[in-house]
């Protein structure tokens, strides 16, 4: 298993040519499976799940809010791994992965925040409270914005290292988000799916949530790998343009020699 993991890591972060060839084969399947899982999950969420005995129809917001919140954190875990790739192993694709995952993570965090507010208003009577879970999740969104801003203003090796360091420092927010509902009294409910003692959600409501979570995760990886391919293509284009410029340059620089 370790050697397989190393192979996968090296395929993704070490060799852009191999990554491009492999992703070209795998990506259509990932897009297709993501569409299938999301279609089944949405059908279940809207037509098969009964209204909750307390929340009524509003419980249907859970099927986008929870997967979005999970992906917001998964994207950050991917970025933390990529940061180690930048700082420790110096993999060429690690910085591309960091750059590609940041906007995706920010978007899923925003979706988590907005759908959470729209779920909170009818259930709690308010769109927002400064409780530990909501505030630490908002901080995650701000960390994403900071990383995106760093990579946009410093598009070089130094920018890559700074973004990687900020990402590693920001990773401290992940356990705070996860355990905030246990450490403090929050309006947000405690964990109800992945918890000791099993899920507290009825099976009729749980399965579409898991299907949506798988579909959303596949969609995230489809977007991540397509964005990663964009970064590789951008890099190749920049090199090609540089070669073209160099090929045109000698005539002008010849007299100086």
């Amino acid at each position, binding site marked *: 298993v370790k050697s397989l993991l190393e192979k996968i890591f090296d395929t993704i972060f070490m060799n852009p040519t191999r990554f491009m060839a492999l992703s070209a084969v795998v990506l259509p399947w990932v897009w297709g499976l993501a569409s299938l899982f999301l279609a089944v999950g949405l059908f279940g969420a809207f037509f098969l799940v009964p209204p909750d005995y307390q929340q009524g*129809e509003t419980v249907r917001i859970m099927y986008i809010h929870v997967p979005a919140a999970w992906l917001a954190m998964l994207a950050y875990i991917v970025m933390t791994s990529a940061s180690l790739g930048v700082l420790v192993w110096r993999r060429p694709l690690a910085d591309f992965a960091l750059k590609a995952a940041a906007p995706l993570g920010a*978007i899923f965090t925003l979706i988590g925040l907005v759908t959470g507010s729209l779920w909170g208003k009818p259930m709690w009577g308010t769109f927002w409270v400064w409780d530990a879970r909501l505030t630490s999740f908002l901080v995650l969104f701000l960390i994403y914005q900071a990383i995106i801003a760093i990579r946009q203003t410093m598009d070089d090796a130094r920018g890559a290292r700074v973004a990687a360091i900020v990402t590693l420092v920001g990773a401290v927010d992940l356990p705070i988000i996860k355990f905030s509902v246990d450490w403090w009294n929050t309006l947000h409910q405690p964990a109800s799916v992945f918890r000791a003692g099993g899920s507290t959600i009825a099976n009729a409501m749980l399965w579409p949530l898991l299907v949506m979570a798988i579909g959303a995760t596949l969609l995230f990886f489809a*977007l991540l790998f397509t964005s990663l391919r964009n970064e590789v293509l951008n890099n190749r284009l920049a090199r090609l343009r540089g070669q073209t410029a160099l090929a045109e340059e000698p005539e002008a620089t010849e007299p100086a020699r």
Partner: protein
Amino acid sequence: MNDDAHWTYILLAYGFTFAIVGAMIVRVVREHRRLSAELHRLDKSGGADG
């Protein structure tokens, strides 16, 4: 709160999500097509020059 009000929040949540995820998919895929086409064009022109 009645069910109609609940559905307003549900539709707003799903509408926002579909709009933002849809825009992200379109942006990433269009960018990929543009870059692939440009690379293909540059490769071809480089080959023709060579």
